[in-house]
Every structure is written in structure tokens, then in C-alpha cells.
């Protein structure tokens, strides 16, 4: 009985507040296609590849937009002692939008990001986890979104 009256009160509160602004969790429009990991021998360098999926119908700024005020897609990786990562390169289908006379170029669908990873020859064998984030600014036909960061973990297995 006590529980029933609490539920009733909760329903009343929800009903009265319906229609007011609700604060929603910020949805993500980029996700990782598969878990990111590489294996390499201490003292060597290899190229790592990360795959991201851009949500259908959405597009994100390229890594090098023509206007410096726009927010480029950027990869950030934390640094760990003994592991060095180099400048990333981006590979993606390009979408050209021409609103009136203003060309703008975007990434869409699958975004591949490549970057060199070097491991010091003094680094002990084992798995090292590097935190990373992909900064992006997405738009769809009907609205643009505030810049967001997609956070991920990248595994480096030193053999």
C-alpha cells in the first residue's frame, strides 16, 4: 500500500513536469568499428590503424578544413614512457556539400586513421593501454552538433 502511494506520487510528478525541458545525455555520432590493438617487438616501429564509423546520414569535418575557424577532426593519444606515436593520417570517403557558393568538404561513413607507433628496445614485454580520443564536429542535413570527443583505448602488445 505504502509502495503504491509512492508510485502514484511519482506518476503525478512526472505527468506535471512532462513538456518541460529535459536534460539529455549527449549522444555520440562516431563509434569504433573494432577494438584497436597492435603487436610489435620492442625496438621496432609499425603503423597502427583505427577504424571509426560515422553514424548514417551524419558527416564530420575533415582533418584539414579550408576555414581555420572550423573544428577539424583530430586524434589525440596519451603518451606512455617507452611508446612513441607519430602524426596521424586520415582516410575516408569525402562528401562535398555546396551550400550556395560555399563549398565544404566532410568525412562520411568509415574513417580510417593511421599513425606510426615506435616502442623503445628497453620496454618490457606486455600489454600497454593508451587512452585516446577523436575530436569531431558533425552535421546532418537539418542540424549541426557541438564538437564532441569519442574516447577509446588502444592496446599495444609488446613481444
Amino acid at each position, binding site marked *: 500500500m*505504502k509502495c503504491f*502511494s*509512492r508510485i502514484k*506520487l*511519482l506518476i*503525478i*510528478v512526472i505527468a*506535471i*513536469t512532462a*513538456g*518541460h*525541458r529535459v536534460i*539529455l545525455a*549527449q*549522444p555520440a555520432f562516431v563509434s569504433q568499428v573494432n577494438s584497436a590493438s597492435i603487436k610489435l617487438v620492442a625496438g621496432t616501429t609499425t603503423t597502427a590503424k583505427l577504424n571509426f564509423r560515422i553514424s548514417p546520414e551524419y558527416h564530420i569535418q575533415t582533418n584539414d578544413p579550408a*576555414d581555420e*575557424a*572550423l*573544428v577539424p577532426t583530430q586524434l589525440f593519444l596519451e603518451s606512455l614512457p617507452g611508446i612513441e606515436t607519430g602524426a596521424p593520417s586520415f582516410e575516408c570517403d569525402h562528401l562535398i*556539400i555546396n*551550400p*550556395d*557558393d*560555399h563549398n*565544404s568538404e566532410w568525412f562520411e561513413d568509415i574513417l580510417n586513421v593511421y599513425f606510426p607507433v615506435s616502442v623503445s628496445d628497453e620496454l618490457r614485454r606486455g600489454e600497454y593501454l593508451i587512452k585516446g580520443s577523436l575530436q569531431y*564536429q558533425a*552535421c546532418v*542535413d*537539418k*542540424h*549541426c*552538433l*557541438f*564538437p564532441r570527443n569519442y574516447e577509446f583505448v588502444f592496446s599495444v602488445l609488446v613481444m
Partner: protein
Amino acid sequence: MKNKFRNLIIAGTGLIIIMSLTAAFSVTNAGSETKMPQFELSSVSGKTFNSNSLAGSYVVIHIATTWCPYCRAEAPYLEQLSQDYQNKNVKVLLIDVKEARDLVNSKLKEEFSLTFPVLLDEDGTVASAFAPADVLPEMERDEIMLAANIIIDPRGTIRYMSLLDTRNFDSKLIHIKKKLDEMLLSH
């Protein structure tokens, strides 16, 4: 009885908190007319701007950010509109959402030589207050307003609102100018 009273207090307190958080910038509906939400914002030049000062004029409000490509495409045409209509009782405002003063000053006001007020909506509440409740309800309210254009009449009623539509993008503001001309003619 004691429990019922306690539950009532809990529910009532929750209700008051939620109402006070959400009602401050609600758009007022008067019949079928939607009134402009009242607001007070700081401009990039540091002056306080109160929406009461707009009474008696037609107002074009553009909601923008420095990184919004469509807002940037419109900016020069908004300045042109401001100059073309300044003697027709039309005021133009740009409300920037959630960005720092210096950035907005350099990337919007100075870069496009904007002569009309550029206001800072630091937490997005004013942009949210303009957002129609039935449009993309799953999205953040201030987010759906980016690149929107709004026309307010001299009585403070929202007479026209366009949200971003990149497939029919009108950077030259041809449609807004047509609407303004119609309103000015019928006034």
C-alpha cells in the same frame, strides 16, 4: 498518515526544483502566437543587452557559433541585411552559443566586420528558450537552434523561424528578406 505526509513533501519538493530549473526561459504561448523569450545577455564588447530594448522594432535574430560553417556562410549577408534595413525599423542580432568572448569577437564580429550586436549565450539557455518543443525532441535544445534565423515583430511575437536545412540552404537570406518585406508592407 505520517508516511503519506512525508511522501507529499518529497514529491512537492521535487516538483518545485524541476519547475524552477526549467521554467525560467520557457517561450510564452499566447493563443497561437509565440512570444519571444525575455533575456539579458552580455555583448562581445562587454555591454549588457536586454531584450526589452527591442520592443517596437522588427528584429532578426541569428543563432550561431564560430565553428558552424552555415553560420559563417550567412554572416556577410546578415551584415548586408542589417545595413539595408536599418532605416526600416529592423534590428539585427547574433546570439553566439557557448563560446568564449575573445573567440567570438575575433572569429565573428571582427572577421565579418559585424556592426550589429553580437551577444554571448554562455550556457545556451537563451537559444534553448527559442527552440520549438516538437522539433527533434531527442536533441539538446540549444543544439538544434544553431544556424537558425528568427523574425520578431514590434509586439515581441515570433513571426518566422527557420532552422538549418542544408539541402535548401539560403546563405544570402533571400527568403528572410522576402518575409521581412511582406511584414513591413502589411504593417
